[in-house]
């Protein structure tokens, strides 16, 4: 028998990386929030890589942090090795990646949720979602409890209609052997939500003691470690190693001989898998000429011997997995603890969402994370915090918070999803951002902290420290522009030895720093008045000076883009009633219902002349 349990402002379904950020942001904005997890031991779980960050994902983590999110802090607290990737390839693409103790991470996150004001964390499977006559949402649990909420965030991950495939075996399941959410999909279909099937996979976990590390390459962390969070004080320290191993011809042979036993190739899986994260058998089939494939052995934590084999994801039968694994040098005696699997799940076509992540047609209902067609913990967290913020703002009757493409990777990710949609699970990449020379991980705080503060997610203390940093950067930049570096034999020798032209007369420090070959550190002996500042200040000034020309050009592109971005399109606009729009444009605009003329201009099939027509329409109707 159904019973009424409690009323909330915001309810979040799912406590993975999207649900966690959504629930925290909502509660921190002062509205009564509940977050449901099928199993409380799955809160903030990492069912795949025991790592956070990486290329472009590191950017997302820092952006979430600058908005007051939790992922960066949790990662800093529980990391066991960090590496800044892409050093030497340019500041735009530097990316922080940390190996994480996954149990510790989950524990940390769960405790943060438990301690959060305005937030209840509950173990329950939501089986039904419906709208009441007064416009509120009702959620029913499997145990017949009914909760009401003004806004609901769907962050169901791979739990929703989850089904695991291992060879010929398949069964309904959530990730990591959790129960799946089997009933909610039906309920969502009744709301006319366009669901579809995506799939992803994970590699086997092997006992550390069964691997012969003496024949593998060791991968150590950075000497100087870096934190994700701009608020983390103690720098993290390296506590573990990763290793690299290679497959061989024998491995390939085993795979090819057993390909017909893969559910992917026998046609059992209908879900669309991610292109960038192929299963190992996919790699063998798609790149038959590659003699070997490398993969990484990563620790799952400090107090466990489970090792994660990044690059070995597979849905072949367990027997075949064991067989191909043993062909690999160092893995002859490997003891598999968890078998690799593919998992298929229900998710939404994100074109049904607004940039605020609210459904176009279902007021108060939001989506975040894998449910929206993305993949990855960081992508999930990025959408989670935005969905949570907007659910809370809706409750408060305030305008939605939207980050545009030029502001952040978060904005780029969401704009891509809700404007272009996705045909396979969407992964963030640096190449997806046209403004990436500006949107660096090192300046995520400079770009987004003011938004976080304005929303109320950044403390006064942190904001004060932020303003102090901004001032220091400005002052040092001015000093570099005003300080003259005089000629000396030592300087000339240094310039020549670093492969740059010697001086003809003294020049400003800023001019020297603009040269690609020179760094602040190189010029220290010639810059006697240099103040004692944190390294990050010098880093900002040097980057801004070195890339000044490029940054200015990108800024000009952004200014141009934003002119159309601020022209908002009314939600009730009837595109079929606007003369002059081409048929394709009408169809696309009606489906996607863009938030602004800028968003409309990025829809494929909407031409510049359609945009002119829209602008005329707007002006004519006085909107």
């Amino acid at each position, binding site marked *: 028998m159904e019973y009424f349990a409690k009323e909330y402002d915001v309810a979040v379904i799912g406590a993975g990386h999207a649900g966690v950020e959504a629930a925290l942001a909502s509660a921190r904005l002062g509205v009564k929030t509940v977050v449901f997890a099928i199993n409380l031991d799955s809160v903030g779980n990492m069912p795949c*890589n025991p790592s956070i960050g990486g290329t472009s994902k590191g950017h997302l983590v820092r952006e979430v942090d600058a908005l007051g999110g939790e992922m960066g802090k949790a990662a800093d607290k529980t990391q066991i090795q960090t590496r800044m990737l892409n050093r030497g390839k340019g500041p735009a693409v530097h990316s922080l990646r940390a190996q994480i103790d996954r149990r510790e991470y989950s524990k940390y996150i769960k405790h943060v949720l438990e301690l959060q004001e305005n937030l209840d964390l509950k173990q329950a499977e939501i089986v039904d979602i419906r709208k009441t006559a007064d416009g509120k949402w009702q959620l029913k649990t499997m145990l017949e409890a009914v909760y009401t909420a003004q806004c609901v965030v769907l962050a169901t991950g791979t739990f929703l209609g989850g089904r695991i495939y291992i060879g010929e075996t398949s069964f309904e399941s959530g990730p990591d052997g959790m129960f799946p959410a089997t009933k909610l999909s039906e309920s969502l279909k009744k709301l006319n939500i366009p669901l579809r099937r995506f799939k992803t996979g994970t590699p086997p976990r092997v006992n550390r003691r069964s691997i012969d590390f003496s024949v593998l390459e060791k991968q150590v962390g950075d000497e100087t470690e870096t934190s994700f969070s701009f608020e983390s004080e103690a720098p993290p320290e390296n506590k573990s190693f990763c290793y690299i191993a290679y497959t061989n011809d024998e491995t390939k042979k085993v795979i090819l001989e057993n390909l017909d036993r893969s559910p992917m190739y026998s046609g059992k899986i209908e879900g669309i898998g991610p292109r*960038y994260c192929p299963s190992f058998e996919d790699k063998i089939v798609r*790149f038959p000429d590659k003699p070997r494939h*490398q993969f990484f052995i990563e620790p799952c934590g400090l107090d466990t011997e489970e090792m994660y084999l990044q690059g070995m994801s597979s849905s072949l039968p367990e027997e075949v997995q064991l067989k191909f694994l043993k062909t690999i040098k160092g893995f002859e005696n490997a003891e598999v603890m968890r078998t690799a699997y593919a998992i298929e799940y229900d998710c939404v076509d994100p074109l049904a969402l607004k940039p605020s992540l609210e459904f176009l047609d279902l007021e108060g209902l939001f989506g975040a994370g894998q449910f929206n067609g993305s993949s990855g913990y960081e992508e999930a967290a990025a959408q989670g915090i935005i969905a949570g913020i907007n659910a809370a703002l809706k409750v408060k009757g305030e305008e939605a918070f939207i980050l545009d493409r030029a502001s952040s990777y978060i904005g780029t990710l969401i704009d891509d999803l809700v404007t272009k949609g996705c045909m396979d699970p969407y992964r963030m990449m640096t190449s997806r951002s046209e403004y990436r020379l500006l949107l660096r991980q090192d300046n995520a705080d400079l770009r987004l902290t003011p938004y976080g503060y304005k929303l109320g997610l950044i403390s006064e203390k942190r904001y004060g420290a932020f303003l102090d940093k901004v001032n220091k950067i400005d002052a040092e930049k001015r000093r570099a522009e005003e300080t003259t570096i005089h000629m000396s034999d030592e300087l000339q020798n240094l310039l020549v030895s670093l492969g740059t032209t010697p001086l003809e007369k003294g020049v400003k420090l800023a001019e020297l720093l603009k040269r*690609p070959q020179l760094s602040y550190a190189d010029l220290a002996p010639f810059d006697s008045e240099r103040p004692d500042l944190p390294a990050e200040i010098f880093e900002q000034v040097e980057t801004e000076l070195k890339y000044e020309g490029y940054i200015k050009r990108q800024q000009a592109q952004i200014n141009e883009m934003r*002119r159309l971005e601020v022209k908002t399109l009314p939600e009730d606009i009837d595109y079929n009633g606007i003369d002059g729009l081409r048929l394709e444009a009408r169809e696309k605009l009606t489906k996607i219902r863009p938030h602004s003329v800028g968003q409309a201009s990025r829809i*494929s099939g909407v031409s*510049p*002349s359609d945009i002119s027509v829209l602008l005329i329409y707007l002006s004519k109707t006085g909107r």
Partner: protein
Amino acid sequence: MSTVAAISTGQAAGGIGIVRISGEDALSVADRIFKSVSGKKLKDLKGYTAAYGKVYADGNEIDEAVALVFKAPKSYTGEDVVEISCHGGLLVTKQTLRAALSAGAAAAEPGEFTKRAFLNGKMDLTSAEAVMSIIGAKSENAKSAALNALDGALYRKINAVSSSLKKTAAQMAAWVDYPDDEIEDLSDENLSGVLLGCKKELGELISRFDIGQAVIEGVDTVIIGRPNVGKSALMNMLTGCEKSIVTSVAGTTRDIVEETVSLGGAVLRLADTAGLHETGDAVEKIGVDRTKKKAERAALILAVFDYSEKLTQEDEAIIEICKGKNAVAVINKTDLKRKIETEKITSRFNGTVFISAKEQAGLTELEKELERALGTAEFDTSAASLMNERQYSCCKLAEESVNEALEALRSGVTRDAVNVSIDCAIEKLDVLTGERATESVVNEIFSRFCVGK
């Protein structure tokens, strides 16, 4: 908003053509290509005023023109606007537009001025609707034209350049986005090899644009020579009828007579000029000045000399005018006895042709020589060529971005900056063909690299 320019009168041949420049830098762009007779800068003029002066491209005068200045917000677009009215017909109008484009303006998209008028909250709505319906029609035409181009040689050529840039960008993106995978960095040599290859291809397209224009639009050709060497006779020989008055009294042809002929694989827009010699006669004087000017801005000069006479000082002046220009020496009157010092001509012109206008001899040789001088001999009409200023401008911008990438590479800036310049070039080419940049690069990554966990 960036500054844009376009021809705002029709594309059909007509007396006056207007180039409109709109945007923040409209006045300074216009000042770079237009010098008023009064010496006043356009940016110092009040709105709604006009200046008479000359249009320059690369330091060469190309036309006399009137510039009309509108100051924001009192203009069509609501921005600073300069409208330059040219007198020299379509070709000169196009040259003016190109001068504006190389002086910093971008080529306006169809509907751009109207779009700006709206963005700036500026425009009578009734007339806006009328304008938009025309633009709508225009872009349909543009679309079908683009579709034709998509099947053609240009599309294949641009695609080849664009896909080699995309491959490179994808390789760089994969190298960045998958640092732990075994993806090799492109060597500087490899990278600059690709970029130089693209630069060359784009450069060829850009330079072919002029030849293409000569074939399609015609090339301004002027016939010069001292009086009575047979300029008008040559013109008549080319056009096949008596257009200019041919007499043996020096100075009969006072006005420039224009005629269009198809010769040497190109359309020649011929002008027969008054004979070039210094004279006290006021009327004649104007004719001579105009000849000099006309010769200065012509794309091709036919310099006529008399076979039966020794070279005079006036002939020397003619040779001087032709220096550094695309000129062909035409030695007329081979029906008479030779007195001319032939080697003095052949050594100073790239091409020399002997004709007798009287006997209609030497036409084939002349035609061959014109083909060589105009580059039309090798011009394959089915080969890729840029069809309009928009395509030309996209190509130029892409070439600029490729140059920037090369410069970044040369100066040792990190790869991320090189990569962004390459992305810019791809974007410009994708604008030309109507594709999207970032998506195509992403797709390329997946089809070429084995990456990910």
